[in-house]
């Protein structure tokens, strides 16, 4: 009786589905979070009789075969990288990307990480850093005695220093793109790492062709839509329930079989 194991693959798949939905809902208010979806595939089939096999010497062909499936598996959990809404915060170091591209961050071990979360701050030395204190690349130092900082759509950072009416350019933000951004490796803390699947990073100036623009004083919210998630949750829960019904039905049939042998 394969029904038992088939239904258990179905239950496992729906469990993964619920876990992914739970993670999306938990990160509803995470800056720059991109929602994930589980994708399923059917498992290998056992060919009892292949469709189109000959049923007689004269060449008559069976219109349908007998292929028994073995259930379902999780093929991938992919990230949907659509744009999140922009939320105004009026904080000069909150920077949102409108369009394609990631900020490049230097990690503690010296390698590069990438993020969409632009809730930056300043280090004691005046460097633009993330909430974990990691330096945004290329490094931008805000001079002391700065009264105000303006970042334009092209990522140019201008600072107005006390005693000087003319703002001076102190740095230029860059954005990084990947051939396949869904292939980035999420490592938590809103950070992503390059992988063989993502392809090589390509950096460019915001606003140049293919790259997004910069919005100062805004944060990108997560692209999780609560209504979508709750609908998906209900569907997943019902699917789980139905697979468990198959388990109990198969169990009941086996009980009947077992009773046959009794006195």
């Amino acid at each position: 009786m394969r029904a038992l194991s088939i239904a258990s693959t179905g239950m496992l798949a729906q469990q993964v589905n619920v876990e992914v939905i739970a993670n999306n809902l938990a990160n509803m208010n995470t800056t720059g979070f991109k929602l994930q979806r589980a994708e399923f595939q059917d498992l290998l089939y056992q060919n009892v009789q292949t469709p189109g096999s000959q049923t007689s010497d004269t060449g008559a062909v069976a219109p349908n075969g007998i292929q028994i499936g073995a259930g379902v598996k999780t093929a991938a959990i992919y990230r949907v990288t659509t744009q999140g809404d922009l939320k105004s915060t009026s904080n000069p170091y909150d920077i949102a990307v409108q369009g394609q591209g990631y900020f490049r961050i230097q990690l503690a071990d010296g390698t590069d990480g990438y993020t969409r979360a632009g809730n930056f701050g300043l280090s004691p030395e005046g460097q633009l850093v993330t909430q974990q204190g990691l330096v945004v690349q290329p490094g931008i130092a805000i001079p002391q005695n700065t009264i105000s900082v303006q970042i334009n759509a092209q990522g140019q950072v201008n600072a107005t220093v006390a005693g000087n009416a003319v703002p001076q350019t102190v740095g230029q933000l860059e954005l990084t793109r990947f051939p396949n951004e869904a292939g980035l490796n999420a490592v938590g803390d809103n950070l992503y790492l390059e992988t063989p699947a993502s392809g090589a990073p390509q950096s460019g100036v915001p606003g140049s062709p293919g790259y997004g623009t910069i919005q100062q004083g805004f944060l990108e919210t997560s692209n999780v839509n609560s209504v979508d998630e709750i609908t998906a949750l209900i569907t997943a829960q019902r699917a789980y329930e139905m697979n468990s019904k198959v388990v109990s039905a198969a169990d009941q049939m086996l009980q009947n079989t077992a009773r046959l042998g009794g006195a």
Partner: protein
Amino acid sequence: MKTGLSWLAWPLQSMIRRSRRDPKASMDNSLLISLSQQLAAYRSMDVIANNLANVSTPGFKRESARFEELIAMVRPAEGQRGPQALSFVKDAGISRDLSQGSIQRTDAPLDVAINGKGFFVVNTPEGERYTRDGHFSLDAEGRLVTSDGHAVMGDGGAITVNPADGEIHIARDGTISSVVNGALNQLGKLRLAGFADEALLVKEGANLYSTTQAATAAAGTIQQGALEGSNVQPVVEISKMIEVMRAYEATATLSKSQQDLSRQAIAKLGAMPR
């Protein structure tokens, strides 16, 4: 459980064969007929379980087991005239319901659903395979691939997106274009394969089908940002499941009473006269 069942099925088959060859060979027919029905019920249950397990698999097509009557002629029993026909249950095939699954919006730019007939063509190491699962992404070289990394074929081979390009648009006829400097740049056109007899496609797992039939053009239209859901209808499957379960129970009761009958006969007839 699987090995246990095939162990049961083997003597059944050989006994049916034997009864056809030699009508005089005696056998407990009603038990064997019940057994053939029970094996059929197990198979139906496997197919229903697979449908329900794949209720969230994009592009999955539901299946149902079909059975046929197998007539075996046996010698007449006491008080009957002429050979008697026994009807066993036998697998005839599994038919696939190729109807359209519901179109579910995902908003992912590389998710595409086929509305109507046709299959996407996927280039695997084993050759061309076909799928209705339109969840695609780009690989490290910017090629359009399935979630297993196999290239999706366009009219002129694999489709490659330049990483510097902007938004990707997929038109209803499958034409893929990207925005370059504000203008649309055509990258290729998704190939849709149609077949003379779609029921003959062989399922390979991983949402792929294979066939020896020649692919022709198909008339389906493409919808971007959506996936075709599985066409499994839970209500239908659950009610079929209950039906199969009840039929199985009824047959089990039948075999049980048949068994009781033989036991009583043995006890009565075998009782030593005092």
